[in-house]
């Protein structure tokens, strides 16, 4: 098969997959009586109309990048982390609890400590699933989904009970939220008048560090080896079980950090529904970015745009915000399907045979003469 054929093949597969995802979105939009073209127009152009909305894209991209980096580490190590949502909540709880506890401390100690607390809390929550998989062979997809529900209940319990802002109890409104965390623990705002905060720089730095970890360290090599071929890795001396746990610690840590960054950079207190689906969107971002930091950063920006745009369509076109879940689901299905065609030599062979029969590609004899 010629190089041109392969390129054309890949382009066709990707175009069909993208077309299928857009078609699914269009179908649902038509079903609920929205104007698909206008809606997609708002999604993709609305957020870019003014500076504030444009910075909002990046505000969303920060947690998405962090979560997706962790998910990329876990997927590459052969363990599917669906539990980012719960790990984010743990990160929020850990960082805000510490910030409130040590409220008198100076910022240069408090801020790193809070970020670390968030990452540790998330890592601990992710580590449970890793341990269960390594020790008891518990399917990590099921356990992380269950841990999401458990974390959700724990989160509301703490915000309604032990961590609730005393002011909420005094005024009697009883909104489940924590006290405002001290200013010393806030992440700086990068652009005045917007919510863009220095977590962006942290996310970019961690993207680079993730690349270093996975492709330039022994630990990363071992984890990728365990993910690529369990038996072969074990035969080569990799302790596969341990690398699964380490991968989940990293994945949970990144998600926890995302939660911490959201609290310290955007909301400044633990409130309900901070995460609003970053855990699941992060899976889509990681897959869309090819499980590679260099792909994840732009993918996070793209999905940040999608999230901000989806909020706008709710106002402009009356499309419920759940619509974003539909698109995310369709995109996941399209990506995993397309991947199998891109990486499957048998499928390529089949396609080549098909085209030869149509007389569109050269005969095997002709391409054989060409030589390697």
């Amino acid at each position, binding site marked *: 098969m010629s190089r041109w054929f392969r390129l054309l093949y890949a382009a066709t597969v990707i175009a069909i997959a993208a077309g299928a995802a857009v078609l*699914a979105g269009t179908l*649902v939009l038509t*079903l*609920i*009586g929205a104007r698909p073209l206008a809606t997609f127009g708002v999604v993709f152009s609305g957020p870019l109309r003014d500076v504030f909305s444009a910075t909002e894209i990046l505000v969303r991209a920060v947690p998405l990048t962090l979560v997706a980096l962790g998910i990329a580490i876990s997927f590459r190590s052969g363990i*599917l982390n*669906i539990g980012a949502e719960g790990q984010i909540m743990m990160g929020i709880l850990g960082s805000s609890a510490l910030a409130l506890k040590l409220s008198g401390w100076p910022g240069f100690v408090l801020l790193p400590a809070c970020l670390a607390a968030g990452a540790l809390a998330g890592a601990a929550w992710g580590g449970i699933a890793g341990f*269960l998989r390594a020790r*008891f*062979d*518990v*399917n990590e*997809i*099921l*356990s992380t*989904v*269950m*841990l999401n*529900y*458990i974390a959700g*209940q*724990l989160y*509301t*319990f703490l915000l*309604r*009970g032990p961590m609730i802002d005393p002011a909420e109890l005094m005024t009697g409104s009883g909104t489940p939220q924590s006290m405002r965390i001290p200013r010393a623990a806030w992440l700086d705002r990068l652009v005045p008048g917007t919510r863009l905060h220095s977590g962006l720089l942290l996310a970019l730095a961690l993207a680079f560090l993730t690349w270093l970890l996975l492709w330039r360290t022994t630990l990363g090599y071992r984890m990728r080896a365990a993910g690529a071929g369990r038996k072969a890795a074990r035969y080569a001396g990799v302790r596969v079980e341990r690398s699964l746990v380490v991968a989940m610690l990293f994945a949970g840590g990144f998600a926890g950090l995302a939660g911490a960054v959201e609290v310290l950079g955007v909301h400044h207190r633990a409130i309900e529904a901070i995460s609003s689906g970053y855990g*699941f969107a992060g*899976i889509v971002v990681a*897959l869309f970015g090819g499980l590679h930091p260099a792909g994840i950063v732009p993918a996070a920006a793209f999905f940040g745009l999608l999230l901000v745009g989806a909020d706008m369509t709710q106002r402009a076109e009356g*499309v*419920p915000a*759940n*619509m*974003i*879940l*539909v*698109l*995310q*689901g*369709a*995109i*996941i*299905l399209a990506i*995993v*399907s397309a*991947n*199998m*065609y891109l990486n*499957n030599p*048998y499928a390529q*062979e*089949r396609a080549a045979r098909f085209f030869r029969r149509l007389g569109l590609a050269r005969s095997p004899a002709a391409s054989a003469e060409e030589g390697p």
Partner: protein
Amino acid sequence: MSAGHMVYDIVSLGVPFSVALLLAALGENFNQRAGVFNLGCDGVMSMGAFLAFLAPYFIRSGPIAPFTNLVGFALAAAGGALLGLLFALVTVTFRAPQGIAGIGLQLLAGGVAGTAFRHFVGGVTGVGGVATWPVPGLSRIPLLGGILFDHNPVVYLAFLAVPASSYLLHQTPWGLRLRAVGTHPRAADTMGISVPRVRYQALVLGGAMAGIGGAYLSLCQAKMFADDLVAGRGFIAVALVYFGRWSPWGIMGGALLFSLAQAFQLSIQVGGIHFPYEFAVMLPYVLVILVLALARRSRKLGPAALGRPYDREVRV
């Protein structure tokens, strides 16, 4: 309230609670016996619950008004079957990895149900739902009558589906083909069984059953629809298949165990025992994790080709 009363209440509440889990898990069992595990079950249930809810919500008068619940169940089964077909297209024809594809299906189906619900219905609205139909005679047996024979008709049908699926799996040619495809697809292929066709059939059947399980939630149990009505039951159903060792009877035992835990949790809340509500809600999810950890050995009894896409052209 005496302890005896409380146990009776828990058991007679637990039996109807188990039905949604039971139907979805029996369906998931067909998927897994054919070698495909469908983690989108939760989304399919959500879709089923929503579609079933639409029938009594919109059809309030006219000639079919008395049969709206039946129409609802039919819609849910059809919607579930369609989603099963979509999942088959992705995992059988396109051979995508099943775990992540299942999460995609879950987001897609749950998202469509939630979006359409907001658009067509808006807020929480109740429907009449399916009424209780005590079995004449049997329901008057002391104790047992109330536990087993004083429910809505879907409960009886769901429990009849247990021996029916066992028969289908173990006593029919189709069941044999299904298990062959899930155990050794290449051998089945060599014997002239079409692996994709059997897997498609299993996924459509499993999807329809998950849809009906969802419909049970909205029409019989909660008698309303909400985004979070299913609340992870689809994932619990997948776990129950492991717990029940891929046998319909084992799955029934697991479904009963879980719903008893849930009924217990509710009776704690109603009984006024001081215990944070959130921890009571957590209980079933914690139980799933414990059960999965303890059922580790049974993993070896599972279908040998579970989770592996089959490509007849791959040379091994």
